């Protein structure tokens, strides 16, 4: 005999847990965590999590169960007088009960849905009028356009927007060596140059940056020196 297990039959980890609790006929307020965790894991192993939309939620619940199980195994902390240690299962129990409440309501709603599907509204109606409205000027019915409709049109329109942010990026070939040479060549012509003027001639930001690095490099290698008489005053670059 072989069976096929589908976690798709469950709406999520809480649904699966409720099923296991019912199946084992255990008290929801006193869940045998070790047993339920074991079975929960077996289910997870048995199915291919990959097929599930909610794989992460199932795994998260596994982690929660294991944590609770571990907490239950630990010696209970010694507490003052009549203070009672909180049952580590408490939060999970509350979640299960809350979920169960709405699951029952959902099933009631499902019954109503089945029932209502046998009744049909009057839709095939025109209002006879002395002066009928032109075709494109009918009243906007309450269900004609919803916020959702507009949202979906909006998303559609946005997807059609032509990409306007087209930038052509040209690579500017510049190296520190080039700029070192450039600085040194300048200093061959003049004894010293103003830092401001040196950089002022450069248009592209990248060249500016590389030139600055080149100057630092030249200073480090003791090829040039930098002078400044006062704070914020002009900076001079000269051969050292």
């Amino acid at each position: 005999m072989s069976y096929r297990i589908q976690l798709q039959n469950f709406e999520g980890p809480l649904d699966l847990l409720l099923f296991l609790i019912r199946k084992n006929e255990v008290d929801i307020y006193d869940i045998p965590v070790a047993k339920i965790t074991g079975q929960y894991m077996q289910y997870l192993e048995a199915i291919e999590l990959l097929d599930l939309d909610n794989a992460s939620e199932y795994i998260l619940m596994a982690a929660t169960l294991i944590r609770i199980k571990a907490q239950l195994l630990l010696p209970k902390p010694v507490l003052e007088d009549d203070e009672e240690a909180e049952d580590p299962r408490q939060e999970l129990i509350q979640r299960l009960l809350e979920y169960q409440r709405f699951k029952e309501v959902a099933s009631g709603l499902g019954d109503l849905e089945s029932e209502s599907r046998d009744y049909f509204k009057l839709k095939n109606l025109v209002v006879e009028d002395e002066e009928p409205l032109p075709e494109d000027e009918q009243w906007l019915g309450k269900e004609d356009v919803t916020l959702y409709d507009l949202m979906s049109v909006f998303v559609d329109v946005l997807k059609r927007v032509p990409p306007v942010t087209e930038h052509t990026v040209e690579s500017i070939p510049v190296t520190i060596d080039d700029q070192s040479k450039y600085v040194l060549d300048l200093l061959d012509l003049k004894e010293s140059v103003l830092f401001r003027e040196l950089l002022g001639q450069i248009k592209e930001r990248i060249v500016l940056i590389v030139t600055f690095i080149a100057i630092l490099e030249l200073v480090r290698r003791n090829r040039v020196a930098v002078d400044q008489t006062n704070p914020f005053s002009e900076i001079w670059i000269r051969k050292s």
Partner: protein
Amino acid sequence: MEDAYKKQIVEGLVFASDTPISEQKIAALVEEITPAQVRKVVGQLNEEYTKSKRSFQIARVASGFQIKTRKDLSPWVKKLFKGRIRARLSQAGLESLAIIVFKQPIGRVDIDAIRGVNSGGVIKTLLERNLVSIAGRSAGPGKPILYGTTKEFLNYLGVDEIKDLPKPKEIEEIMGKLDSSEAVADNILDALTAGDELEAEVEVVETEPDNSATSLDDHNDGNGKTE
């Protein structure tokens, strides 16, 4: 205004309105008619319809009156709409609706927390079907969008007011139910060997990915706008 004419106006308005129309609304439109008279007239009309074997009745849904065809005619109407009848809501859809209707306005995160799974796709379907709508924003951090149910939701279920819906039971009642639960008959149940042993073996054969099992609703088709 003669009573007979009042009756015709009420009938005409119920017919012409594209959404359920309340007695208050009718009374506001026709000065000489009171809400109580509207209710009385609707009762008379329904009696006449029954007597003359009309194929419809005036039903009370979503706090108003609406014409609906008789249940016994549904096989024929369904034939008419064949292929265009909207899919039923998925279990996930019903669960989310159950939460939204009794906790509204509620944000997605809170719906997720109660269901234990992500409800984004389901909410989208419910929005698309106009069963829920955006009902404002939370004052909390990030001011997330909150959802609530629509009149169309009550209309869809054929219910007059929210209080006519099945209510969430008190925790104690659920407990009683769980204790006395006959195990759910499912072949899934059989798949586990007599559940007492921890080492119960699960035998699985061909767990092929079954994408089709996820309900149509969630990956919604957005077609047939019929009901």
